[in-house]
């Protein structure tokens, strides 16, 4: 077998030019060929690359999509994110377990099927959903499951299943992102200016980053352009991992040209020779159409050498697939991952614009930001900044899911109130709205008059509606579980803090909490927020902290009046030992 592996691995490593920075791709390819990463492979890959074994193990152990155990021919990854569970994912999970005769985390004895859970896969608007060997199945219901399992066990391709369809659900297109475009128009206009003038135009548009932090795009490009380095890079952040966000998926499916147009404009402005798209593994099914779009652009002279006839402007784009890790959306973790390492955030400074990909100046921008950039080039800064509010120019894509009649993507003008959005989506009777996903805030009706914009309620795009029947606190608990799972583990406040907090919250939700417990949860939450190293930890406590503020009535109703309640149950704690040793608990206990 080792002989065999060795041949396969050497071939893969050759295919990627023995380039250590392509370790993600190499490992992905080996994983795809062998179905998992056997220990021998983890020994052979570094040999072929001339690196240490631990570098491969370190990387491979980090990502959810790399398995170290043999997996079934078909791997079903059912999404159990909050919205999916609101829409009945638990019942679907039970149906899968029953039909396959195994539990989640297991593989059938015949090696045909593996069942796994996965975090949000960007399909909350058509939940419950699952990825089957990468193919999305949507709008699942328990009754469909037996037929799905039967077909897959019989060796049918998941693509042939009736549930294998992804709806766009583009409910409201707007002028910036989803208006028709003319391929190449933005690039041509940019090439008629100097790179400095392009950045000036961006600056005049006052466009800010759409990925969450809202950093002014022109400033980022300017820093990057001016930073010294052997090469400059533009990176498109298509990791879209925030639960409830799926707007980048719709962009990539509907108008990838606009994204690549924006990247090419950025490439010109930064003086970059290469652009990289970091595409989350969950969106692998979009890859063929994206590659096709890139090929088309190359054939039209919009990518490659001497673009649009401009002597010396050489720029191309490569798509890098991720392997299932939310934290890789954080820009410095993303860069680590692009370099073929585990996705642990870096210390800053230096910032990516100074030392990013391969230690060279790198601008990381969200998919939607790059679309804005292209449109600004095409239509001008004045056109763009006439839309929206003073500090939030342009439109914003929101992905709305949860308890509403029309989940999907809406291109709204900045400044729209939460109330108006709820009207639009058919979610008027909302009890709460999760704005900007779990890392954002949970809003109560008293806040529904506030407006969506950087000045008031910023959002990366995730809006989750909780109807009147929803157990909001249980949803917050599930958000917290998500952060526990996704913490990269580098720093203690986030790694240990989120786990401790989760246990404390569980105690309260089980009816064993006191007022003192709530105070401690809040103190711990603030410690996690202020002491964590990156944005993940800094926002992980938000679901709990914002509901302690906005839904104190719900929390108060959960706690008991006693000074102290022990979560400990002696009888239960002794059961296991008694069963193993045959000892009997003392009578008075």
């Amino acid at each position, binding site marked *: 077998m080792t002989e065999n592996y060795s041949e396969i691995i050497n071939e893969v490593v050759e295919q990627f030019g023995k380039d250590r920075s392509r370790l993600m791709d190499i490992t992905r390819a080996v994983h795809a060929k062998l179905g998992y990463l056997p220990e021998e492979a983890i020994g052979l890959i570094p040999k072929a690359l001339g690196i240490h074994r631990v570098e491969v193990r370190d990387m491979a152990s980090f990502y959810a999509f790399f398995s170290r155990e043999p997996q079934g021919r078909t791997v079903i990854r059912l999404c159990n994110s909050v919205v999916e569970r609101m829409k009945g994912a638990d019942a679907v999970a039970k149906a899968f377990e029953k039909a396959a005769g195994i539990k989640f985390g297991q593989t059938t004895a015949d090696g045909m099927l593996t069942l796994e859970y996965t975090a949000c896969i960007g399909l909350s608007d058509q939940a419950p959903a699952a990825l089957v060997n990468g193919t999305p199945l949507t709008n699942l219901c328990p009754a469909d499951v037996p037929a799905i399992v039967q077909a897959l066990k019989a060796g049918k391709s998941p693509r042939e299943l009736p549930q294998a369809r992804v709806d766009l659900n583009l409910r409201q297109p707007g002028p910036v992102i989803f208006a028709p475009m003319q391929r190449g128009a933005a690039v041509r206009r940019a090439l008629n200016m100097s790179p400095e003038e392009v950045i000036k135009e961006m600056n005049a548009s006052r466009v800010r980053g759409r990925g969450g932090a809202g950093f002014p795009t022109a400033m980022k490009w300017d820093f990057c352009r001016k930073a010294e380095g052997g090469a400059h890079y533009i990176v498109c952040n298509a990791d879209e991992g925030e639960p409830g966000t799926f707007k980048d998926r719709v962009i990539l499916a509907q108008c990838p040209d606009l994204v690549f147009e924006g990247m090419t404009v950025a490439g010109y402005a930064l003086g970059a020779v290469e652009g990289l798209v970091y595409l989350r593994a969950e969106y692998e099914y979009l890859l063929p159409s994206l590659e096709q779009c890139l090929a088309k652009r190359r054939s039209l002279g919009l990518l490659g050498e001497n673009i649009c006839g401009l002597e010396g402007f050489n720029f191309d784009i490569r798509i890098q697939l991720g392997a299932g890790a939310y934290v890789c959306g954080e820009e410095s973790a993303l860069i680590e991952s692009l370099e073929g390492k585990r996705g642990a955030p870096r210390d800053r400074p230096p910032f990516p614009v100074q030392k990013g990909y391969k230690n060279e100046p790198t601008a990381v921008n969200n998919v939607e930001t790059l679309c804005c950039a292209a449109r600004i080039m095409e239509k001008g800064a004045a056109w763009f900044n006439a839309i929206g509010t003073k500090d939030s120019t342009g439109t914003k894509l929101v992905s709305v899911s949860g308890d509403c009649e029309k989940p999907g993507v809406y291109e709204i003008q900045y400044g729209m109130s939460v109330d108006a959005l709820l009207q639009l989506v058919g979610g008027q009777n909302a009890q709460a709205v999760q704005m900007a996903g779990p890392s954002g805030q949970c809003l109560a009706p008293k806040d529904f008059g506030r407006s969506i914009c950087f000045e008031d309620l910023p959002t990366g795009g995730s809006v989750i509606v909780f109807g009147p029947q929803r157990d909001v606190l249980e949803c917050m608990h599930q958000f917290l579980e998500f952060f526990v799972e996704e913490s990269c583990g580098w720093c203690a406040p986030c790694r240990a803090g989120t786990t401790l907090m989760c246990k404390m919250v569980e105690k309260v939700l089980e009816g064993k909490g006191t007022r003192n417990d709530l105070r401690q949860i809040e103190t711990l939450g603030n410690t996690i927020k202020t002491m964590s190293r990156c944005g993940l930890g800094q926002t992980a406590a938000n679901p709990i902290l914002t509901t302690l503020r906005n839904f104190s009535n719900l929390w108060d109703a959960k706690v008991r009046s006693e*000074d*102290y309640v*022990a*979560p*400990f149950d*002696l009888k*239960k*704690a*002794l*059961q*296991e*030992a*008694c*069963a*193993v*040793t*045959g*000892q*009997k*608990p*003392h009578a008075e*206990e």
Partner: protein
Amino acid sequence: MAKPLVATAPFTGCFGCHMSLLDIDDRILKLVELVEFDKSPINDIKVFTRPVDVGLLEGGISNDENVEWLIKFRENCKILVAVGQCALTGGVPAMRNTVPLKECLEEAYLKGPTVIDGKIPNDPEIPILLDKVYPCHEIVKIDYFLPGCPPSADTLWAALTALLTGKNVGLPYELIKYD
């Protein structure tokens, strides 16, 4: 005025925290002037003889006997202080929490490389193990927490004297900083 009474408990720990208490050097003489010890391994008093002011707890809670005594400490002490990482979080003994108890026992008594004719002990006299090692505060209310493995003699001294003289127990940062 009668001297304040102190009791100390060794639960599932390494006695390091008790050692640290003894490590206060000649201040031990001052301590003896200041307090009287009731139930404690230091003087080998096995039961509570009267209500106690301060109970110091070392170690996590790993068996039914620990639970029983922890509850007795709560009943008999006005103030309970969890001392050291084991009492606060389970500490080193809690490393077994990631392995099912059955596997731990089998490894120790049946499968271990030095085991001959192994048998998992089941004498009724032996305390029964809990499914995992618990921190003290999950079983009874704890009034103060002293982190450290062990907390230094200075930390223990500062905390104890503050408690006994009714002062504010806010300790300076240097005494509870560990990295």
